[in-house]
Each structure stands twice: as C-alpha cells, then as structure tokens.
C-alpha cells in the first residue's frame, strides 16, 4: 500500500536547524515546511493542518508550549514533538502532560528526530488515536 506523505511543520528560531532538517526529513518522502517564528507557523497551520509539528521550546514571543497548546486546540490528531534547549525533567513533564507526543533535547542528530517522527507516523497511520 502506498504511503500517503505526511505533512511536517518545523519551527525553530535558529535558521540552520530548518536548513539542515528539511532535506533530512524529506528523505522519507514527507512534505516539510520550516518556520523561524511561531506566529507565522500558526498562521500557516490555520490555512492547512499538519500531521506532525516539531517545535523548539525557547523562542521569543511565542514559545513551544504555547504552540503545542494552540496546535492541539486546532487539530487534536496532530503529533507535536518538542525540542528542548536544555533537557530538564520539569519541562519534559510539562510538555508531555500538555499532550506532546515526545521531546528531544538539543543537541541531537537528524537520525534521532527521524526515529521519533517514524514512531509518530506509525501511530498516525495505524489510526491509533493518541490521547493524553
């Protein structure tokens, strides 16, 4: 059965993150859009929903937790993966309790993120409804 490509949104205020991860994630045939500002990303989300959102947690104006909350409010089935600057248990716990699919701590390798996205896509495709 042919895989429907997933729509992935990547938000990080570091320009290099998007630049490097876009080709890395597109290798699986998925569609990747990158954003450096939370507002623009949320506006884009309103136009078209994404299956997976990967967002940095520490950003100016809108932070990752806020994006997580807004995205889940807009689309409950979207998997949100949080990138944390410094992996502290509290932030991870807060993100997970608010419905994040998983979190990944900087610095990480593209393969690490691909692994998480793969798990998320499996869940999405199996139709399993992720509930918190």
């Amino acid at each position, binding site marked *: 059965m042919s895989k429907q490509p997933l729509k992935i949104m990547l938000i990080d205020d570091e320009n290099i993150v998007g630049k490097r991860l876009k080709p890395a994630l597109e290798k699986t045939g998925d569609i990747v859009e990158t954003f450096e500002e939370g507002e623009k990303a949320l506006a884009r989300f309103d136009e078209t929903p994404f299956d997976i959102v990967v967002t940095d947690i*520490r950003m100016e104006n809108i932070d990752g937790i806020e994006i997580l909350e807004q995205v889940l409010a807009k689309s409950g089935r979207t998997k949100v993966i949080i990138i944390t*600057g410094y992996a502290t248990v509290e932030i991870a716990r807060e993100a997970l309790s608010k419905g994040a699919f998983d979190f990944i701590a900087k610095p990480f390798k593209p393969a690490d993120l691909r692994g998480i996205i793969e798990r998320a896509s499996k869940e999405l495709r199996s139709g399993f409804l992720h509930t918190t």
Partner: protein
Amino acid sequence: MDMHITDIKNPEINHENDPENMSLHERPSISIRAKVAISFSLFFILSFTVTGWSYWILTKLETKIDFLEIADNYMAEIQQARRFEKNYLLYSTDLEEALEHLKTADAILKQKNEQIEKILEKEHFKTMVTYMSKYHNQLVLLRSAKNDKEKELIVPMLRQFGSQMVSFAGEFVEKEQISAKRMFLLAKRVPLYFMSVLFVLMSFVLMFLARQLLLTLNRFMEYTKRIGEGDFSPILPARKYKDEFTKLAEAFNHMIKELDHKHNVLLESHKLRAIGTLVAGVAHELNNPLNNTLLTASMLTEDFHTLSEEEKMEMVNDVINETERAQRVVKNLLDFAREGETAIAPLEIGKIVEDSTRLVVNQVKFAKVNLELNCETNLPRIHGDEQKLKQVFVNLILNAVDVLTPGGQIRIHVQKDQTPGYVLVTVKDNGPGIPEHIQGRIFDPFFTTKAQSKGTGLGLSVSQGIIKKLGGYIHLTSNPDKGTIFTVSLPTTESASEIMSK
C-alpha cells in the same frame, strides 16, 4: 583543665606588630591612666599644701591667743600696781599692794617667759623687763623715802617709767590683737579661696579629660560608621601621642583586616551564585551552536556523496561559524567567572555594561522582557576592576529581570554625570517598585525580598561594597507605579586618583 586556665590567664591580644598598626605605634605614649594620675596628684599636692598651711596658721593663732591672755593678765597687774601707786601718792594708802601686783606681773613674765619671748622677740622682751624693773626700783625707792621732798624727787621718774611700762605693753597688746584679727580673717577666707581654686581646677581638668575622651569616642563612632559602610581602610593616627585608645585602634585595624578578608570571601561566593544563575542561560545558548554544528556535520556525512561542492563548503563554514559562536559564549562567561585579584585599570564603561547585558541576554530572553541599552559616545574612562563592575551590572539587570513580568522593560543608560569627573549608569525597570519601608534596608547584607532558594540577599550589599571601593556611589529611586531606578556613579580616571588619595 590546666590548659584552660592558662588560656584564660593569657588573654593578651597584641596587634602592635601588624603592618597596618605601624603608624599607630610609632608615637610617644601618654596613657589616660597617666593623665588621671597626674591630675589626682596635683589635687593631692594642692589639698596637702592648703591643709598644712591651715594647720600652721591655726597653731600660730593659738600661741597668739595664749600670749594675749598672758599679756592681758600682765596688763591688769601693772595697771593695778599703778593704781595703788596713785592712791599712795594721793591718799597715802599702803604701797605694799602696788609692789604685790608688780610681783605677780613679774611672776607672769618669768613663768611664761619663753612664750612671750617668742612673740615679742628678745630685745622687746628685755626692754619690757627693764621698764618694769626700773619702775619697781622707783617704787622701792618711793617706799623707803623718808619725807615729801625725797618723794617729790622720785615721783617724776616713777611716773615716767610707769607710763613707759604700761604704754609699751599696751602697744604690744594692741598690735598683737590687730595681727590676731588679721590672722582670723585669713583663716576664715582661705577655705573659700581654696574652694574656688579647686572648683576652677576641677572643671578645667574635667573638661579637658572629658573632651579628650568624648572626642576620641566620637572618632571611633565615625570609624564604626565608616567600616559599616564598607570602607575597610585602616585607622590612621589622629593625635601626636598614643594611649589606651591606641590599643583599641589596633584592635579595630585587626578587625577591619578580618572584615575585608571576609568581605572578599563574600564577594567571591556571591559571584559564584551569579555564575550559577548565568550558567543556566549559557547552557541554553551553548546548546544552539552545538546543535547546529551536530546537525550540519551529521548531514554532511550522511549526504557527503550527493552534495555539491558548494553545499559542502557552505556546511563546513556553518560548522566553523557555529563553533566560534560557542567559543564566544564560553569566553564571555569565563571572563566573568575568572578568579583573580582586584585589577584596577582604566576601563570603558560602555563596553563593560554592554558585556554585562550580553551575559544576561538569555535570562532576559527567558523572562520575555525587553532590554534597551543607550550609551553616550566619547565617555571618559573610569577606574575600576572589570570583573567586579560586570558583577554589579549583571546583578542589577538580574534583579530587574526578577521583578518584571513578561513584556516588562529594562532601560540602561550610560552617560556623563552632572557632577564633573563622574560617569553615571542608570538601570531602570518598569516593575512594581520597591516599597518605601524596605528601601532603607535594600543594601543591607542578607536582606532579600526573594524566596529563600532564589536570593542570598548579598547582591546589592556586595555591589555597594564594590562601587564604594572605587570611590563611587550607588543609590535607588523607586516609585510603586513607575518602577525602580538604580543609579551607579563612578569617578573617571582623571578624578579617581584624587578621591582614592582622600
């Protein structure tokens, strides 16, 4: 137990040989004890003299009174003798009575001869005795006179010697009476004189001693105030000699040295605390370049064969740039954290403040507040220690960040002070402000409005210590509606040397 006793027995604390006490020690010694001893000795000598003199004058008076009594008796006797002599001549009564009285008078003179001689002096006594014996002889002659003719020959001589004898004695008695009166008056007045002299002397000594003690005590009160405000320079001699207060000054200097040492330890521990706060931010800031490097390098390996030369070059450059970015972050923190002695050097205040804002950039970002730095150009250089000044500004900015809610504003302004020779740094926030009743305690060590785990209460106290040591000042103006402004004023290099030498 024995050890214990020796410990108590030798509580002698001697700071004489401490280097900071050399100038105090190199003076002649006039102790308070010596001053008190001299004053008391003076009093004693004075009292002793006056008492001795009083005793002497009273003794003299006593002999005078004795003499007057004797003289009185003697006078009475010779006057009586003359009265009988007159009676004999006028009424031809018995002359024996006159002789009898003269005999008694003679007896008095002989009996009290020493006493009288003492007052009259030998010559006068002799004259007195001669007058009496001459009169006596005349009386004897008169008694043996056979007829009136013979009597008439004797009478003028007898009268002459009689009156001479009486007037001589009378004069003396009168003279002695006057002198005794004078002595009495003096004896009565001397205690009054003594009292007034004593009073004047007492008040003078009291004023002198009290003034000296009070002035010195006041001086020491000034010292404690100065030390309390963080000025740890040793006490210098204020007088030309040393006394018990010198020992106190020496102990003070020792305490100041210890305090200065403790203060430096405090400074260091507060810096460690600030580093701890900054590290959390720095860790985040390091994670970004590290992540960028890792992602880029990973992709470079992954797609090494498919990437164009141009893309590879760009990625390698990214790796270099991001590594340098990480290096800058680490260097900035290390500059702040570096251990080291105070190094006073001419500094650009603008650069120091800018570096400080860079150190706290993450705290500012996380708290979602805005930081605005406004720096006048061409400011004169200031005298100071780079690290310590950064510590002050980091501290002021972190304090502002702590009180602000997201969206808050921090405005830092670096400019020339209105007082010439000073530059001014103001750190202004639009937070809730500091209530007036705690404004006075805000610079006290260990005073904090933050939660136990968040603040040590040392930040502002340490900052004040640093700024004061550089000859500047730090103060705050706070208003519940308009937030808080911390003002730091620092002397420029031109004026610093003058202030330091004060």
